[in-house]
Each structure stands twice: as structure tokens, then as C-alpha cells.
């Protein structure tokens, strides 16, 4: 790990950071547009149309509006934590992009423990929600925060354990190596993706990931109907925007991880001129990630919310045993072959 | 390269801070936090010695310390909750029935 920090190719690194974070920030902004548009279409509405063609400039308008709105801080809130919470939420969410390989060379750094690094930083994201809820000194946010911490701890277990099966097959924790391990094919046509080897793990991962990102049907921390937007009830303007950004960043992160671990990352058919060949992996990667994001949005639009006890029971009594069983079976198979 | 002694001194300082927590704080959760500080200080020495001697076992011990810390936190916090239910307070000086 240390050699990356003290490495000599500092300029290249800076460029990569700039490209990736610039891209990611822009993408996150447009994710809000995408979600609004898609949700509207599902509900037979047009969605945003006023700002720019197809409402494409809507995110910029939203951003400006957030910047200029009055920043309200509730009187009896805990000022320091109230301000710190959105930052604590956003920073880890963005940190995980530093290890995600968007293409063969489009990766800021390839840590030998990259996957764990992502889990580590995303697990810190919980503090943003918890602190935000607590610092608001209001009962809905507090309840949302408590729910959220319990939920995150519970589902983090199955999330982490579901990955173990893949790790046992791939024999590495480095994300780049995970992708290259899936490059070849079976019988020349079927890509050697882990989804075919670890379907159970994939399902468990997907469900846990939805829960981890606090999205429907697991969004009990914010659930508008009962908790009035939960832990960010009291938040407004830029701080609220940061929470939103963090949430979208997390969605992208887990989608990217799913792509990398189960769907071969940036691998895909290569054709055309050399320049195109350089860009193609990134295109494949983004394509796969967008499919997941579509899936997320559609799920939000269609699936009703769990009850809290159902959520807990499902996490501990279904997902956890399932992922454990998956590990046992996988380890047997790996040991035999 | 940083001499191992520096790490050990740092860890001694952290450990001392953890110890002092017991003499300054009265909140039981704060005391548990002090224990965690001490455990981390010890972990630091383990890792430092592991590098110094080129043996992986030091890191394995850290692993076990983590497990013990997790168990300790789970049981300890459960006790904290039980204690709070009974006494409406987390002041350890109020829970002194277990004596001679």
C-alpha cells in the first residue's frame, strides 16, 4: 500500500484521479436526473422536461439551487456533528472509487486488498447517517439513525460473506486481478464470469447491497411515510445534497462491485481500430454498471417496503445462513477440484 | 525506516492514556472505550514486533485480539444496557453492590 503513496509516477496518478473523480461526480449528478426520469416513466409521467432538452440541464439547476438555499441549522442540534455528518457520509462513499478499475489502466490504484478496502470505507459511511440523525436532536432522525445502524451492521455480514465464495475461486483480493481472472471463456462463447459459478452468492450480494445503500425496499432509515425522510429530515441545501450524492455514490459503488465480481468487470468483445479498443473496456464496464443502476431504480419504483422486523428476520435468518451455506459448498468444491 | 522503539513508545503512551481513562472517567461506556484504546496500543506493539522479527505470528495475535475485543464489546454493551435499565445511570461508582 505504502509504495503507491510514495510512488514516482505522481503526474499520471493525478491525471487519473482527476479523470475518474470528475467523471464520477458528473455521473452522480446525472443519476438524479436518470432516476427522476425513469421513475416518472414507470408512473406514466413525463418527469423533468423544462430545463434543457429532455430536462438534461436539470441537475445543474438543482445544484445551483442547493448552493443558494438558506442553510438552516436546527436550534437544539449539535452543531459540530450536524455539519460533520454529511461530510462523513460523502467522503468514504467517494473514497471507494479510488480502487475501482474502470478499465485495464483506468484505475487510480490497485490495492492488494482492494475489495476489503471498499468494505472498510463503506462501513464507515454508516457514521454519517448515524451522526446526522443523532445530531439533529429530533426524534424522527434519531429513530432513522438507530434503524439504519442496526440494519447496516446486520446486512454487512451477509454482504461480506457472500463475497467470500468468489474470493475462494479467484484467489485474490485485488479488484484488477478479479477482473482479469474472468477474461477467458468457456467453449469460446460463454464468458468465464463468476455469476455462473456463484449464483447464490450473487443473489445474496444483490439483496444485501440494496439494504446497505438504504434504498427501497430496504429504506427504513428514511421511509418518507412513517419517519418523514428519517435521518435527513432536518437537513437542507448543500448538506442535503451531499447526503444525496453519497447515496448515489454508494449505488454506483455496489453496482461496480457486482460488475467486477460477478460479471467480468470491463471484459467484453473487442473489435475495431486501436483507439476504439482502448475505450471499449470502459464502455463495457459502464454499460454493465448502468444495467444495475436501471435495476435499482426500477426496484425502487416497483417493490414495496419491508417492515422492520421482517427486515431483521430476513437478514439474519435467510441471507446469513444462505451465504454461510454457499461458503461451505464452495469450499468443498474448491478443495476437491 | 522508523525504529521499532518509536512505535513502542507511541504504544506505551496510548496504553497509558487508556489506563488513565479508568481514573478519570466514571461512565461505564467511557471505561469500555478506554479498554479499546489499550487493546489498540497492544495491537500496535504486536504488529511492530511482527515486522521487527519477520514473523507473521504477531499479526495473528492482533487477529485474535480483534476477536476478543468484538466479544468483549458485545457482552459489555449488553451489560451496559441491562445496567442502564436497572439504575437509570451509567456511573460505575453507583454499581458497587458486589463487595465483601
Amino acid at each position, binding site marked *: 500500500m*505504502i509504495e503507491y503513496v510514495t510512488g514516482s509516477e505522481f503526474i499520471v496518478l493525478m491525471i487519473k484521479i482527476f479523470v475518474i473523480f470528475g467523471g464520477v461526480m458528473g455521473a452522480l449528478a446525472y443519476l438524479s436526473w436518470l432516476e427522476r426520469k425513469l421513475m416518472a416513466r414507470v408512473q406514466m409521467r413525463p418527469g423533468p422536461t423544462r430545463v434543457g432538452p429532455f430536462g438534461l440541464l436539470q441537475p445543474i439547476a438543482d445544484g445551483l439551487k442547493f448552493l443558494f438555499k438558506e442553510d438552516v441549522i436546527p436550534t437544539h442540534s449539535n452543531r459540530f*456533528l450536524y455539519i460533520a455528518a454529511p461530510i462523513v457520509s460523502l467522503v468514504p462513499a467517494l473514497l471507494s472509487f479510488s480502487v475501482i478499475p474502470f478499465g485495464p489502466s483506468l484505475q487510480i490504484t490497485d490495492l*492488494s*486488498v482492494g475489495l*476489503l478496502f471498499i468494505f*472498510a*470505507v463503506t*462501513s464507515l459511511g454508516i*457514521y454519517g447517517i*448515524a*451522526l446526522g*440523525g443523532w445530531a439533529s436532536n429530533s426524534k424522527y432522525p*434519531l429513530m432513522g*439513525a438507530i434503524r439504519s*445502524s442496526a440494519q447496516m*451492521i446486520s446486512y*454487512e455480514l451477509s454482504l461480506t460473506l457472500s463475497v467470500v465464495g468468489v474470493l475462494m475461486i479467484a484467489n485474490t483480493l485485488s479488484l484488477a486481478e478479479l477482473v482479469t481472472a474472468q477474461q477467458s471463456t468457456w467453449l469460446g462463447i460463454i464468458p468465464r464470469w463468476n455469476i455462473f459459478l456463484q449464483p447464490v452468492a450473487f443473489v445474496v450480494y444483490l439483496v444485501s447491497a440494496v439494504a446497505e445503500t438504504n434504498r427501497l425496499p430496504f429504506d427504513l432509515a428514511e421511509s418518507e411515510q412513517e419517519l418523514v425522510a428519517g435521518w435527513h429530515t432536518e437537513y437542507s441545501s448543500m448538506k442535503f445534497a451531499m447526503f444525496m450524492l453519497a447515496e448515489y455514490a454508494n449505488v454506483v459503488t455496489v453496482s461496480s462491485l457486482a460488475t467486477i465480481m460477478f460479471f467480468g468487470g470491463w471484459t467484453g468483445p473487442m473489435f475495431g481500430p486501436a483507439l476504439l479498443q482502448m475505450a471499449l473496456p470502459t464502455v463495457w464496464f459502464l454499460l454493465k454498471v448502468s444495467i444495475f443502476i436501471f435495476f435499482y431504480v426500477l426496484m425502487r419504483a416497483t417493490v414495496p417496503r419491508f417492515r422492520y422486523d421482517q427486515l431483521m428476520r430476513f437478514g439474519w435468518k435467510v441471507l446469513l445462513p444462505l451465504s454461510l451455506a454457499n461458503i461451505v459448498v464452495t469450499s468443498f468444491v474448491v478443495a476437491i477440484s | *525506516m*522508523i525504529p*521499532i522503539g518509536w*512505535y513502542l513508545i*507511541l504504544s*506505551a503512551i*496510548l496504553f*497509558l*492514556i487508556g*489506563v*488513565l481513562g479508568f*481514573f*478519570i*472517567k*466514571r*461512565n461505564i*461506556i*467511557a471505561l469500555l472505550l*478506554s479498554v479499546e*484504546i489499550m487493546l*489498540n496500543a497492544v*495491537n*500496535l506493539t504486536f*504488529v511492530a514486533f*511482527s*515486522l521487527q522479527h*519477520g514473523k*507473521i505470528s504477531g499479526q*495473528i495475535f*492482533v487477529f*485474535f485480539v*480483534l*476477536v*476478543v475485543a468484538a*466479544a468483549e464489546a*458485545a*457482552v459489555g*454493551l*449488553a451489560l*451496559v*444496557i*441491562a445496567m442502564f*435499565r436497572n439504575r437509570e445511570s451509567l456511573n460505575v461508582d453507583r454499581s458497587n453492590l458486589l463487595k465483601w
Partner: protein
Amino acid sequence: MIQILFFFFAAIAVGAALNVLVQKHVLYSALSLILMLTAVSVLFILLQADFLAVINVIVYAGAIMVLFVFVIMLLNLPEDEDGADRLRWLKFIGIPLGLFFLVLVVTTLWNLEANPGTQPQLVGSPAAIGQSLFTDFVLPFEVTSLLILIALMGAVVFAKRDL
């Protein structure tokens, strides 16, 4: 460069640890401790224990401390520790004792002959740790699983409403 990093994160660790004691409210103490943990994890990286550094964050910061924060929020504690300290005298014994201990250790380490010998290269990779864990330390490893189980049951029993 490494020296700077070391001193920077060492300072953060010590400062955060002190802050744990100074803060009046346990939530701040807990948050401060998370900061200290992260700093210690960085120090682990400096010590070439990458895997442990990440695990330390996941387990400590991501799980154990969340549990603490959760409990603190659940109990929704008042800020002040109530009443006068009945055991005030403890400070006058404990703090000098502790400082004496520190002086003892530091002077000993200070007087230690600096060992210029080459440090063996050792990277705490997951594979190496796993290898050791499942061969030399397999029995303790299994015992810890038992420990976890017992802690699990203990926590459930203690936290039951009608204890």
C-alpha cells in the same frame, strides 16, 4: 516522507486518544476513538500489515464502534456524568503511577541499543495470515469461534428485558 507520515498519524492517534478522555459526552469520546483507530490502522500500513489495517477498520470502526454508537444513541444519555467523584483520591494515585510506568518504559526503550539490523521484508498479506492461521494457530482459531458463540449467547441473555 515515512517519518512525516509516522509523526503525523502518531500525533493524530495520541490526540484522539486524549480527546476520548477529555470529552464530556461519550458519543464524542466514541467518535474520537474511531479517529484514533483509523490513525492506528494507517500506522499498520506503515508497518506493512495491509490486511490487518483494513481488517482493523472493518471490524473496529465498522462493527464494534458502530455498536457503541448504537448503544449510546439507544440509551440517549444525558451529557454530564452525575454527582461528585466519590473516588477522587484514585486520580492522585493512578495518574502518578501511570506516569511512572510510562517513564519507566520510555527510558528503557530510549536506552535500548538501536538495532540497525536489516528488517526482514514481511508483508502481512491475507494469504500469509490465512496460511498461518489455519496451520500453526488452528486450535486458537477454533477456540475463538467458540468464544464468539459464547459472547453471542451472553449478549442475548444480558440484554433480555427481564433479566
